[in-house]
Each structure stands twice: as C-alpha cells, then as structure tokens.
C-alpha cells in the first residue's frame, strides 16, 4: 500500500473520538476471541484423532488424565502401512480400490456431465432441460431410500460385490450437480464462438472438443474434484454393495473396526488419518477451483 493511501486513513484514526476507538478495540478483541474459539472448535476433533492414533498400546484408550500420550508412538501407522494386523491384511488393496472408485467416478462424471451440459446448454436441446431438473430431485431423496432398491438392482444386473456397482452409484449422485455447475459456468462463454466454429465447418463433436472443453476447464476441475471427494468419502453404498474384503474400500475397512468389540482403536484412527490425507491434499491443492465451482451453482441458484 502506498504512503498516499495510508496517510488519510491515519489522520482519520487520530481524529476518531475515544468512544469509537474503544469500540474498534472491542471489535478487534472480539474477533481474536472468536478466532480462538473457532480454532479450538475446528481442531479438537482432529487432535483427538492424532491422540488416539499415537497411543502406543494396542487397543488401549484409557485417556483419563492424559491430554497427550505419555509415549507417543507411530506404531499404529506402521501397522497400517505394513498390513500388520488381521483387520488390515488388505490395506493396500483397499486403498487402491478407493482410488479406483474415486478416479473412475471422476472420469465418468466429467465425461458424461460435460457431454450432457454441452448438448443442453450449448446446442440448446431445451426439451431435455426437464431431465436435468428431474435429476436434481435425486438430491432430495435420501440416499438411504435408494440404497435398498439399489442393492437389489445391482444383484439383478449381476453386479453384486462388484466395484462397478459402487462407481455407478457414485456417478449417479455426482452427475446432477455436475451438470448444473457446468451449465451455469458455460453461460459466461460467448455463444458466438460456437457459431463461428460451426460456420467454419466444425462438427458439434469438434466444437465440444476444441472449444467447450478447454474453455470450461476450471469448472471441469471443480466438478471432477467434487466427484472424486464424494466417491472417496461416501460410505453407505460401499458398505452395502461390497462384501468381500478384497473388494472393500478403506471406508468399509474403517467401519469393520466399529463392528468388533475388541478392536485396536489406535489402528483404526491411524487408518482413518491415512484415509483422510488424499482428500485433504486434493482439497487444499484445488480449493480455489473447488470453492469457485461449488459456490457458483449455489449462489447463482
């Protein structure tokens, strides 16, 4: 900030009445207090995860009197990474499955949603707009309501205990919102670009590939990240659809600790922390796209 910009403000401050100064001070103090409270509120559950994961003894969570483990140990992380416990036997396989589900959901969502959004928004296939609106109703229907018939359906399609049934479910949940965001985003791209390309003889496919995709890249990134995180974090369908341990995702593997009475909680927490790292990394790396893309749909309606 330049000197010219700061000096009038300073002068105004100096002239401020004592009451105003007191008030400004109170506002500042309140902000700091709120910041502190927010910090505690946000970090306590995260700290709790670390606390349990760093506990050295297998399955002991006697934290009475300790706010930090006496001998913090990374043993539980070691156990997870080296699959050194019978609940964790297939950890890397399950980790890979989670990635597989996430990436497949991302790719399919981006491909299907961008094609549909292009046809509806850019090629003005307006009658299909009804379809997008109906699809949004999926958001209104509790996923648990769909879960029961979906399991039956997966069996009928021959997809029981198949990871593709999970991918289909995640894609179904991700797509309506993806189409909405893409359609909204595309309104800032001038229609004349498409027109010009068409006059030059480009086919709709070429317009889609050469104009639409490059220009909507930020929205595609937002939508893809959204789908990835949705698929990674979703748990009900994965839990219900996948029955054999080799096909489980990490989400389901965490859940099995819950079903057991004498499970080592520190291992579970270590697993949960490792499971949280990829989405957190993706989120913070792409948070600009994420926030822009996700709020775009919401703010504009």
């Amino acid at each position, binding site marked *: 900030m330049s000197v010219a910009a700061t000096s009038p403000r300073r002068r105004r401050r100096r002239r401020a009445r004592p009451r105003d100064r007191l008030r400004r001070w109170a506002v500042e103090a309140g902000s700091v207090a709120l910041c502190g409270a927010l910090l505690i509120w946000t970090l306590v559950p995260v700290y*709790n995860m670390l606390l349990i994961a760093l506990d050295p003894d297998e399955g002991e969570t006697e934290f009475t009197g*300790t706010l930090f483990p006496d001998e913090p140990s990374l043993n539980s992380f070691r156990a997870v990474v080296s699959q050194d416990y019978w609940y964790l036997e297939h950890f890397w396989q399950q980790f890979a499955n989670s990635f597989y589900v996430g990436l497949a959901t991302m790719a399919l969502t981006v491909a299907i949603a961008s094609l549909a959004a292009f046809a509806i928004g850019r090629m003005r296939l307006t009658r299909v707009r009804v379809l997008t609106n109906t*699809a949004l109703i999926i958001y209104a229907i509790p996923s648990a309501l769909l879960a029961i018939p979906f399991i039956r359906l997966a069996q009928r399609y021959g997809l029981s205990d198949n990871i593709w049934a999970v991918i289909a479910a995640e894609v179904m949940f991700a797509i309506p919102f993806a189409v909405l965001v893409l359609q909204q985003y595309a309104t800032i791209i001038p229609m004349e670009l498409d027109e010009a390309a068409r006059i030059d003889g480009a086919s709709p496919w070429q317009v889609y590939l050469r104009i639409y995709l490059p220009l909507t890249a930020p929205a595609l990134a937002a939508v893809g990240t959204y789908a990835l995180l949705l698929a990674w974090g979703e748990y009900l369908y994965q839990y219900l659809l996948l029955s054999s341990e080799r096909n489980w995702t990490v989400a389901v593997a965490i859940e099995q600790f819950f079903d057991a009475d004498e499970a080592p909680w520190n291992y579970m927490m270590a697993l*949960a922390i490792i499971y949280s790292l990829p989405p957190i990394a993706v989120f913070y790396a792409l948070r600009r796209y994420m926030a822009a893309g996700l709020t775009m749909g919401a703010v504009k*309606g």
Partner: protein
Amino acid sequence: MSTQQVLGLRRVAIARRRPPRWHVHLHGSELAWALAFVVPYAAVFLLFAAYPIAYAIWMGSDPALYRELFDDPHYLEAAANTALFAGFAANIMMFAALLLSGFFMRRRWWIKAMLVVAMLPWALPAIPAYVSFHWMLIGDYGFLDSALWNLFGIDGPHWFNKRWLALAANMIAYIWKWLPFWTLIFLAGRMAIPQELHEAAAIDGASGYRRFLHITVPLLTNLYLISTALATVWIVGDFTASELVSGGAPSRTTEVLTTLSIHYAFDSSQPALGVAAALSALPVLIPIVVILMRRIERREVQL
C-alpha cells in the same frame, strides 16, 4: 491477499440475465449429435436412479407396511429424532454460518488464515470426522470429558447414556462437518453484493448493524432460504452422522429414519419395511423440494 483470492471466488452478480435464446430448431444431424451427447446421461439416470426410485415406490406401496411402522415405537422415536435433527441442526447451522461469513469478510490477514484452517472439517471425509467424535465423547475416557476434568475440574456427562445428550452430540458432529461449507456459500453470497451499496450506506451514516439489517439481510434472504431448505433435505437424508457418532445409543433411541430404514432392511431382513420407513419422509421432503425449486427459479428477479 483478499478473501476472493484465498477462495478463488469471483465476484458474481446474483442476478444474471439469461443469454438470449436463439429460436433455432435443431434438426437432422445436429439433433442426432445432441441426442447422442445426452444418451449416456439419460442412461445413467434411467438405469441407476429412475428405476430404483420406481422400484422403491413399488416396494413400499403396501399400506400394511405403514400400519406396521406406526405400531413400532422405534419408528415413532426415529421420526421424532429426524424432525428434531432437521429442525435444530439446520437452523442453528445456517444462522451460525451466516454470522461466521460476516466475520470472514473482515480484512485481516489472520482472519484469512483462519478461513483456510476452518475449511478443514469440509475437507475431512465424513467417516473419520464422525468416528473421531464418537471416540471423543465416549464414556469416561473420551477426550472431551478428560479435557474438561483436567482443565476445569468438571466431571463431564456420559454423552451416550442420555437420549438428549446423544442426539445433541450427533447434531454437533454434523454441524462441525458442514458448517464450513455453508459459511463458504454465504461468504460467496456476501461477496456478490456490490461493495458500493455498503459504501453508499456508510456515507449516509448507517452503522454496521443497520447495513447488515437493510443491505445484507434483504439481499441474502433468498440464498438463506434456499440453503436452509437444502440443508434440511440433506440432514433428513444423512445416514453417517447418526450411525457413527451415537450409533443409536442409548438403546436405539437416537436412530433417525435413514439408519432405521437400513437396519430394518439389513439387520432384521425386512427390506420392504425399510423402504417404507424411508418413503414416509417424502410427504415432508417433497413440499420442501417444491419450495426449493420455486425459490431457485425466482433468483433472477433478485437485486
């Protein structure tokens, strides 16, 4: 660094004119292309959404199921819990998010930094978050009770022994997870309000409170109502929080309709009853969705 840069939010006008619609009718190969582009989407929708929905309605169409439900005290309790959960959690969360978004509009570097930290619950997947809450609140050795005892000498309650406390724990965990998302939505909404309005009001001598009341509130009302309706719908459909935080404890008194539905279907092998339990939420959900759609359509007359 401005807040916009932190979040990558662009200033978007709330009211944007629709692009002029050309009255060109698609025909011939154009139409074929357009239809081909929509086919995958339609296929996913029909195969994996429309069909299960129709199937669910067919499964839950027997009136006897609902008689059975209403005779089950667990069902009535779950319905009450769902209503409480949606009523309290949605409104508290939205109000808190509205106030917090105002806080994050302040131009201080440490508030911007705080915003980055505050997004963490949103970035964290739901399962670890709720599992952590479960272990934080459980019994005598949960982190919260030991912290209360160590720091303040307070003997914390047994969170999952009383229905109300357990229900509150579920709500708090849910709010913890989703508050950042809604804060961000309102932050974007506030940023869409032209700064000139605030400046003009400030010149006219309006205090911060009055500016909030006469500028922010009227311009955010639509967004606030849409968000509250959406949050209500999502809460009613949420399974994970109630399943993992309290897990229905004490003795299945904190179940909600979704968990009850899944337990009917997969633990007591009564899938039709499970579908009926979930379907019974629709008479409440459908009006909310209709209002939601109307509100979303009205967005263009705003500002």
